[in-house]
């Protein structure tokens, strides 16, 4: 046992000293934090331009309400002080007997000269109920969405007002009658021991997607970091004949066990560091309710199984290769398993209770990811599914570790051509 610890300790210390690990552990949160900061900064800062646009009003009655709405919008954007949004500046167009095409060509030229940002053409029959001629918005910058979407809302409100007036309907009554009833998402209500009914908790996006996503990323990061490391370490040991020295001192089983224990240790440390960071972040944001201890414990269990299973797969493959070039082709089946887990996770996140999600939770290499997601997303899977998936996962992890041990034993001393799949299976059966 002490030899296994010696290997595990060395493996652990070697891995956490690698540049990739150190950079990964610090850089990832920095990058993620930086990304969010940039996004929120960009959202607030980016657009404070004045957008002048011409309006060809075929109806003759829509320009006035539009100009009024633009004034209100500009006040909300902070006109005259610090701007927090763009300013919209409508200009009426006097057609004065010219043809529609002449006017549009002239306006287009003005847009090209940057005197205008865009122009909009409102057809005369737009006020007729059931009219299907569209309002046309012309711009050089067709990907800019704020102006056309503001026009869409504002013009439609103004058109509705005109249409109701023409039909002799009381607008105030209509808007009262058609007011939308809001729908908010809540968790379930519980009756406490004293008989009082506890306040149902409102469920937000962060609970629904943020927390499960955090677990998913962390699990992938741990598995990929330790898997890659194991693969490279084994190939290095094989190429430089370290394996022979090691096998002269310890059994293949001790070596394998030590290596796996080492990476499980690294995965746990990595996760605990991130748990610490995550809890600190949500606590300082006053959202400690997002931290659910049983979920954290489940995570650690699934993490250990995932690290063992994927670690064994990478060790087995690594020991069957003689150099890194072999490894690339041998890696493909392992990467398919990882991709399957990755894609499966997205299916699960969309519909945690669908039969497909339930099925994926029982497929061993997907289980840690799928089940973790489902556990982190309220209301969580039924207990029997959790227990069954853990049982399947433990059994298959044992099987994979055993098979990897067999391949490891033969592969470590094998030089030259990498084996194909039938040969690998023969090693396992031997």
């Amino acid at each position, binding site marked *: 046992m*002490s*030899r296994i610890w*010696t*290997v595990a300790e*060395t493996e652990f210390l*070697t891995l956490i000293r690698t540049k990739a690990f150190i950079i990964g552990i610090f850089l990832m949160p920095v990058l993620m934090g930086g990304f969010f900061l940039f996004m929120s900064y960009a959202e607030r800062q980016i657009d404070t331009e004045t957008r002048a646009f011409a309006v060809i009003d075929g109806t003759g009655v829509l320009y006035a309400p539009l100009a009024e709405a633009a004034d209100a919008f500009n006040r909300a954007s902070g006109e005259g002080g610090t701007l927090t949004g763009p300013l919209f500046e409508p200009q009426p167009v006097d057609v004065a007997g010219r043809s529609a095409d002449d006017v549009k060509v002239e306006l287009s030229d003005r847009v090209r000269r940057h005197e205008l940002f865009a122009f909009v053409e409102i057809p005369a029959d737009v006020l007729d109920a059931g009219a299907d001629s569209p309002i046309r918005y012309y711009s050089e910058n067709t990907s800019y969405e704020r102006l056309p979407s503001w026009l869409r809302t504002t013009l439609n409100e103004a058109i509705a007002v005109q249409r109701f007036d023409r039909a002799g309907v009381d607008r105030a009554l209509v808007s009262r009658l058609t007011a939308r009833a809001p729908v908010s998402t809540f968790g379930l209500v519980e009756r406490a021991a004293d008989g009082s009914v506890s306040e149902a908790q409102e469920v937000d996006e962060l609970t629904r997607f943020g927390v499960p996503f955090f677990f998913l990323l962390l699990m992938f990061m741990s598995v990929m970091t330790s898997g890659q490391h194991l693969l490279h370490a084994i190939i*290095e*040991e094989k*190429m*430089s*004949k*370290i394996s*022979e*020295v*090691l*096998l*002269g*001192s*310890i*059994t293949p089983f001790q070596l394998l066990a030590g290596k796996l224990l080492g990476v499980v240790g690294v995965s746990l440390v990595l996760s605990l560091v991130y748990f610490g960071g995550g809890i600190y972040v949500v606590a300082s944001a006053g959202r400690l309710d997002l931290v659910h201890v049983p979920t954290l414990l489940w995570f650690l269990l699934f993490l250990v199984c995932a690290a063992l299973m994927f670690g064994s797969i990478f060790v087995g493959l690594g020991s069957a290769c003689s150099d890194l070039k072999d490894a690339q082709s041998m890696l493909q089946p392992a990467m398919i398993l990882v991709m399957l887990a990755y894609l499966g996770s997205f299916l699960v996140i969309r519909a945690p209770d669908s039969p497909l999600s339930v099925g994926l939770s029982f497929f061993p290499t997907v289980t840690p990811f799928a089940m973790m997601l489902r556990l982190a997303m309220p209301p969580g899977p039924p207990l029997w599914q959790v227990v069954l998936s853990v049982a399947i996962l433990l059994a298959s992890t044992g099987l994979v570790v055993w098979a990897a041990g067999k391949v490891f034993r033969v592969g470590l*001393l094998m030089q030259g051509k990498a084996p194909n799949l039938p040969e690998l299976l023969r090693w396992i059966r031997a």
Partner: protein
Amino acid sequence: MHAIEIDGVRKQFDTVRAVDDLSLAVPAGSIYGFIGPNGSGKTTTIRMIMNIILPDAGRITVLGHRSTGAARDEVSYLPEERGLYKKMTVRRLLRYYGRLKGRSTAEIDPAIGEWLDRLALADWADRRIDQLSKGMAQKVQFISSVVSRPKLLILDEPFSGLDPVNAEALKDAVLEMRARGTTVVFSTHDMSTAERLCDRIFMIFRGRKVLDGSLDDIAAEYGQDTVRLRVQGGAAALSGLAGIESLNDHGNYQDVRLSIPPHAFLQALVARAEVRHFEVKRPSLHDIFVRIARPADHEPAAGSGLEAAS
């Protein structure tokens, strides 16, 4: 007392019989040389001794233990070149290998210090392996195999690629290990090293043992059929003499391999020409190696050239 006893061992890989019915006894405290061409079964034999692979048949006893790996902690193995983690420091690596032999850090640290001093590596203890020269790395490798004070030390080509100073230092270190009671087995292609250093030689060829014994035994077995002579008239004077199996003409003298006893040949020779020099030659290990391992279709002239070079 034998450090290694191999009895009727056989090992087959797929269709290749790597080791066939091999028996060998390595006396404790000796330096034993394993020689043989590439692919003849040396590494397989060493791996079986190390218990890295198991024989198909026969038994191997190492330091009196038969059970799997029982002797492992008392045996050290140094593979040819390499065998070191490039990114580790010298000290960390030596500790790791020592601990894998079940020694505590407290036990091996003094040994590490002593050996680093002895092989002039003390200043490099905290450098990474990939900063060392090839010769230094080879010395570190040697140290890694001796810090656990093994009772049996197996070295694969320990001297290859070393400059004369380092080779000398390592040779002294091997002799020192024997003086401390360690049995040393090493495999080599360098016959002159084997001749200088080994008490006994074992040669394996195509999976079978072809030589085993002290240098004197081997020379006695192979050494009575070659004579070196100088006669009036040179090689021409020898033509037609009975008992010449092969002749290697060096100009001023000739090496002749005989199929009859040397004294009978000498009598016939004296009757024919004036003999200035006649010597029953002790063949070098190199000659014997080449004689055994030379492919059947090998040109005799090339073989003779090798003999002349030794």
